[in-house]
């Protein structure tokens, strides 16, 4: 299957010699949601800006739906929608007009039905006659999305869409993204919130210092790189780990009432049965047993810091 977005050896250097992108290559299939994770200054926004035409690449190529972003920029850009990180809106303009402006800018005539549909979907219909400056921060973010969707893009870039918004709005955004995916829109989002990537992405890319460290299916990534732990909760706290359990490499929590066992979920033998037998043999009484898997955040931090996951 031909990817809808294909990035090949994309580089961006600035006059001061700073290399924001160091040969990024990436293919994105139609209809998928890719979350780009990375610390501040990793190159996430530069990557998006370059694909969208805001930043000129130093070298490399990008095609959107088979159209090169430089030689065939009109066709390529028509397929792209961008929701920027910062809330950038003309404060005195009305919601309806600003969405209509975006549609016109991308070469589409005023289609009131389509604009109404977008505004209703984003709960902006009641605010359509309001000036942007009268809206709350959350509503302004919705307007940015409405503008990006006004020309019916097939690829949507969301640059930190939920940065600084409350939990409720974040959940709303996730719902909007899910709906867009249902409609077949390909979504690339950058985020600091790992839980966001965990909740909505199909694949996760990790970028740091201008290099794409990995791109992988989210579940595969978590399965491959995630550790799993069993927390054995005891009815009575203990001072130290009994000698009989020393071969299991357990750790004891601060209160002395939880034994933590880390194991590889892909190993033929996880050692869980033996552990639980040995715990019983050692005369310890269990109150509860819990399992915990590494979050994407832990994986991400480990990847960026270079430590093993």
């Amino acid at each position, binding site marked *: 299957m031909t990817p809808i977005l294909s990035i090949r050896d994309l580089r961006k250097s600035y006059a001061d010699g700073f290399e924001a992108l160091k040969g990024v290559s990436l293919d994105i299939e139609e209809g998928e949601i890719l979350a780009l994770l990375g610390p501040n200054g990793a190159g996430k926004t530069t990557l998006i800006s370059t694909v969208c035409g805001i930043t000129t690449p130093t070298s490399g190529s990008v095609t959107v739906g088979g159209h090169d972003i430089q030689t065939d920029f009109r066709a390529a850009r028509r397929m792209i929608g*961008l929701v920027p990180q910062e809330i950038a809106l003309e404060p005195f303009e009305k919601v309806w007009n600003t969405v209509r402006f975006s549609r016109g800018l991308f070469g589409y005539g005023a289609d009131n039905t389509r604009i109404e549909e977008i505004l209703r979907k984003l709960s902006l219909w009641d605010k359509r006659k309001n000036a942007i400056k009268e809206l709350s921060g959350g509503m302004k973010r919705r307007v940015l999305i409405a503008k990006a969707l006004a020309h019916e893009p097939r690829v949507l870039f969301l640059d930190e869409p939920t940065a600084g918004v409350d939990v409720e709005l974040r959940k709303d955004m996730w719902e909007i993204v899910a709906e867009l995916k249902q409609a077949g829109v390909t979504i690339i989002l950058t985020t600091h919130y790992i839980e966001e990537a965990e909740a909505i992405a199909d694949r996760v890319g990790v970028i740091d210092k201008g290099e794409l460290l990995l791109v992988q299916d989210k579940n595969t990534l978590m399965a491959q790189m995630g550790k799993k732990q069993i927390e054995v909760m005891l009815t009575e706290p203990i001072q130290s780990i009994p000698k009989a359990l020393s071969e299991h490499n357990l750790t004891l929590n601060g209160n002395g009432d939880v034994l933590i066992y880390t194991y590889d979920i892909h190993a033929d033998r996880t050692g869980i049965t033996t552990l639980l037998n040995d715990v019983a043999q050692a005369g310890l009484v269990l109150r509860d047993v819990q399992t915990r898997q590494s979050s994407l955040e832990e994986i991400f931090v480990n990847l960026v810091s270079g430590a093993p996951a």
Partner: protein
Amino acid sequence: MNWSAVAAIYRFEMARFFRTLAQSFLSPVLSTSLYFVVFGTAIGSRIQEIEGVSYGAFIVPGLIMLSVVMLSISNASFGIYFPKFLGTIYELLSAPVNFIEIVIGYVGAAATKALFVGVVILITATFFVDLRIEHPFAMVWFLVLTCLSFSLLGFIIGIWASNFEQMSLVPQLVVTPLIFLGGTFYSISMLPPVWQTITLFNPVVYLISGFRWSFYGLADVPIGFSLLAILVFTGICLGIIGWIFKTGWRIRS
């Protein structure tokens, strides 16, 4: 050509103008009336006719040029600077539009607004002085070309400026003195010979002279020179804008 984008930019910019229509309309009417009261009536009554034209009527083309030039620059510079300032320029840069379409949209709207004000001043002037327009066709062309060329200059200033202070730097420190010293309120034939020669290096002289010629047939410099001057100026501005978009100077990193 993405004419839909041109129309969108033009409409968006004109909407800004119509939001403040009263201010856009009343301000030029008031300032022109004040110019006529001060220069036309109070001082003008003590100045004799210039080649058969009353002083009040003589300054009308210069007054129109003064407002039109300043408004063209401020409208166009503000039009493109404001998206830069707000950050909304991202949308323009990521849209399927080329520089010609962007320029037509922004400069077209800025020139239209200035033209509107020019016509308002012209109509206001008829309440104070007896106007005659000997070459109406040339008058319209001079007015339209002035609006367009100085809107192009304003567009360049808007892209160059990195703060509001810089936006007013060129209009206040360069353009205003050139207009006031370019024969807005006098004929350069009224100056001593040395100053007449120096004044000929002021490009605005050619503009005002040509425009005044279209009204009364009076010109400080030959009409062909005036036409050539404004065409060369327009060409230079277009060349600079073409270079800006080719290199992405101050707009695309």
